[in-house]
């Protein structure tokens, strides 16, 4: 049992332990869950320090048989791609617990237990190296989120929760079909073995089979991302979910989809991925522009942030299907950025809801006078979200745009419109909410941050700056993993996407350097 196993097990143990505490002991329950999530986070730092750069491939591997027939392995490990997504999950879970500390008064025990179960699933999803195990964790994540939305959400929570569950379930059964099909071909669920089999030609897939498998995986992931036009569950789920739910949903769960695209769709089905790239890219661009335009006209802050997610995630998909080193690096970096900055936005909007009991932009005004610190932090987050240089999103968006430009310049033009629009809707919202006439209700009900809220926000702000200035902490591992994936996704089929050969080695790192120098 190595560190990674422990990181998966800890939240699971915490979950069971929490369930065993009598429900009257609310304080104890909160403390225990916080302790477990903090411990998990602290230990997860060991993954960063123990991660060996220059060794692409998995590290912290455990591989034992779980079920003998059909052979399903407990096979977990990390590479540069999963490393940071796992850190993101362990980093945000204590914050999710922190922001719910006072807000959740009803059925406290279940709420905090479910947050730990969610973390268990999330860490597992990113660590699983066996297709079956991946699917198991993928589904495990679904259950706590369903309850988080459905029990502790706002007015239309039930509709949102059921819609969320059914969308994801429809996608994942397709994925399950594809996984079983692959198993019957390959005789194993092992990710690496299947990849090798496909690359070496030991597993022969006809063209139509490959397309079918690709689409089955792709649709499952596209629903989760969510890619236009499969995004309709997302605004509902976000608006109705409690803050902690929105935070985990936006910051980490959406990344399961994009992670899946990078991890499975690209390397396992290289030909199909490239053949289908043109229309996927178009959908991504539509998502970027459409998400931004819809966000602009939202009267509800949370819905605005939700639609901005559709737009941001469009960037990620665009970067992935540009098939360039920079585009892919940018996409992965953007996954992390979006987790931090959109997560922070959801938290802040949640704080404001707790004070004012409204999410409507028109109910606010002059918040900057009433709560200057909250406004300052909100501004920093807003600027990060629209991609101001020296803050995190700039790096990711820049890399994506540059990578896309290498592949097809027309795409870049359309995608860049999204960046401009994001500045419009975010700043416009900021102006309406924080400046303007000080509304009476705001004046009396808008205290500034308390210590707990500071404790939740400071780590996020630090990360926004850190990721914007010193990309070297993150990019080398990511680049390494992406190089390997791009290498595996080279196919012999004629390409319809014009591709300049990606530059090996430090290209991505150099780009990251350029980015912050500019």
């Amino acid at each position, binding site marked *: 049992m190595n560190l990674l196993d422990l990181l998966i097990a800890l939240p699971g143990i915490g979950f069971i332990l929490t369930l065993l505490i009598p429900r009257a002991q609310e304080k104890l329950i909160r403390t225990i869950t916080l302790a477990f999530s903090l411990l998990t986070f602290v230990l997860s730092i060991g993954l960063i320090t123990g991660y060996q750069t220059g060794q692409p491939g998995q590290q912290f591997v455990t591989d034992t048989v779980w079920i003998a027939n059909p052979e399903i392995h407990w096979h977990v490990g990390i590479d540069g791609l999963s490393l940071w997504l796992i850190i993101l999950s362990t980093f945000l879970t204590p914050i999710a617990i922190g922001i719910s500390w006072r807000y959740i008064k009803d059925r406290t025990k279940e709420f905090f237990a479910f947050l730990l179960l969610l973390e268990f699933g999330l860490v597992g999803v990113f660590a699983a190296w066996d297709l079956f195990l991946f699917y198991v964790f993928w589904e495990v994540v679904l259950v706590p989120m369903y309850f988080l939305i459905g*029990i502790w959400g706002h007015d239309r929570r039930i509709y949102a929760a059921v819609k969320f569950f059914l969308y994801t379930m*429809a996608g994942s059964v397709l994925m399950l079909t594809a996984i*079983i099909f692959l198993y019957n071909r390959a005789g194993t669920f092992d990710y690496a073995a299947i990849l090798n089999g496909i690359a070496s030609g030991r597993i022969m897939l006809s063209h139509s089979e490959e397309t079918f498998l690709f689409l089955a995986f792709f649709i499952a992931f596209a629903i989760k991302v969510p890619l236009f036009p499969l995004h309709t569950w997302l605004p509902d789920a976000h608006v109705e979910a409690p803050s902690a739910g929105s935070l985990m949903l936006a910051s980490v769960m959406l990344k399961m989809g994009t992670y899946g695209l990078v991890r499975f769709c690209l390397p396992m089905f290289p030909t199909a991925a490239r053949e289908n790239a043109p229309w996927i890219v178009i959908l991504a661009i539509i998502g970027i522009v459409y998400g931004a335009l819809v966000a602009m006209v939202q009267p509800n802050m949370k819905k605005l942030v939700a639609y901005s997610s559709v737009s941001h995630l469009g960037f990620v998909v665009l970067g992935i299907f540009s098939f360039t080193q920079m585009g892919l690096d940018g996409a992965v970096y953007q996954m992390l950025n979006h987790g931090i900055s959109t997560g922070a936005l959801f938290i802040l909007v949640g704080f404001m809801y707790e004070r004012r009991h409204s999410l409507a932009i028109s109910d606010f005004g002059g918040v900057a006078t009433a709560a200057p610190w909250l406004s300052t932090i909100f501004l920093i987050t807003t600027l990060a979200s629209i991609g101001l240089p020296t803050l995190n999103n700039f790096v990711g968006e820049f890399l994506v745009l540059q990578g896309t430009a290498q592949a097809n310049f027309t795409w870049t033009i359309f995608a860049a419109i999204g960046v401009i629009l994001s500045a419009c809707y975010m700043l416009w919202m900021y102006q309406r909410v924080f400046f303007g006439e000080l509304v009476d209700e705001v004046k009396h009900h808008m205290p500034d941050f308390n210590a707990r809220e500071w404790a939740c926000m400071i780590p996020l702000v630090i990360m926004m700056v850190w990721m914007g200035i010193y990309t070297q902490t993150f990019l080398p591992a990511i680049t390494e993993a992406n190089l390997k994936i791009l290498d595996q996704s080279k196919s012999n089929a004629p390409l319809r996407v014009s591709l300049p050969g990606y530059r090996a080695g430090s290209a991505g790192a150099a780009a990251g350097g350029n980015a912050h120098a500019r």
Partner: protein
Amino acid sequence: MPASFAPSADDLLRVAPETILTIAGTLVMILDPLFAKRFPKLFGHFSIVALLAAALGTAGAYSVQGAAFSNLLIVDGFATFFRFLVIAIGILTVLASYRYLDLEKAETGEFHGLLLFAIVGQCVMVAANDLMMVFIGLEISSIATYILAGYLRADRRNNEAALKYFLLGSFATGFLLYGIALIYGVTATTKLDGIRDVLNTPGNVPAFGMVSVAAALMFVGLAFKVSGAPFQVWTPDVYQGAPAPVAAFLATGPKAAAFAIFFRIFLTAFQPIASGWEPLIWISALLSMTIGNFAALTQQNLKRMLAYSSIAHAGYVLVALAARSEIGTAAAMFYLAAYALMNIGAFVVVIHLAGKGERHLRIDDLAGLGRRQPVTAAMLTIFLMSLIGVPLTGGFFGKFYIFRAAIESNLIWLTVLGLLNSAVAAYYYLRLLVVMYMHEPGEVVNNIEPLTPGLRAALILPAIGTFFLGIVPGAILNFAQRSTLGH
């Protein structure tokens, strides 16, 4: 060798479970007038002891595997698996019925006697190696269950259920019997392997048309018994009308046994003409899944919803039959075990909720159960997750194994449609979770009584089993795979 009519000791051991249960059932009937008034719970306890003894007997029979009584019965892994299963179902049914019989003031030996006889019939069915034994077992089981469905004589719904079940059931048995007669006419044997050998002999396929008709007739009879579409119409009415513990039993015990003979007949006797009947099963599987799931979407009555859901689940098992392979058979065995656990568990919550006279059967009556009785709600959640097919539950692995077998037999479209079906099914199971956890407690739940020990046991045991099958499925699956037909 002079014919000896005295059965050998091994032969007797091979029918140990049937013998034990028959004696126990008869004793219950005889002792009923003496003790029913004074010790109302006695017969329940006695039945559990008898069933546990029968489980031991099954293990004993397994130690002397082989054919018994001139090849009429065969004790193999397959039969043993199903014997254990129906006995376990029997134990859970008894546990689940204590409370019900107490509330209805209907604690008689008759109920338990009939239950034991039904299980005798099912044990005979699953070990039958001859169409005559199939028929005898089926009738023992059916007649007992016809009466059980109408157990509360004064209750109109019980009467309706029993009458419908009896009329349609005997009609279906007629089909089966007609099929048996035809196949005997063509092949001059009723032995399953005998029929296979005749059909396998090249150039000796006598009257192929007649064989097909016989197979089709038997398909009709068996599809009725497992409530596979398009012969499922009786299911919702009967499950809704029958006493809840009996409905739980009907949905699992007779169904598992009927599936056992379905597999045995079609994969042994009719194995040579498999390519002929496969499309039939294919269509029936798809229809069952689709009709069951879509009809369940709009149900307001819990028992009726579970009935439609059981039609859908029969469809999944039929997918495994359509795969016509050993892993398909093993998958079906695993699935039926998982299904029995989760379905009985769900029915137990219904029994608990319904109260006297089964007045509270609407889905809305579950409102707020999560708040008032978190443990009961958590158990139902486990069963529903398993019915949906969420990982780490038995239902998930069951589906997984079945669809894996289907893909291996190249039934890609059936797999895709089946899995999409299970996404549809998620909707109506989730509805129960929504009502239970997300609605404010209603009048029914506010006045609900605490779980009785019997119901508690009937909830916890299947829950443990569901997790066991979901986390270490290998234990059961390996046994199932070793015991598929032809081993």
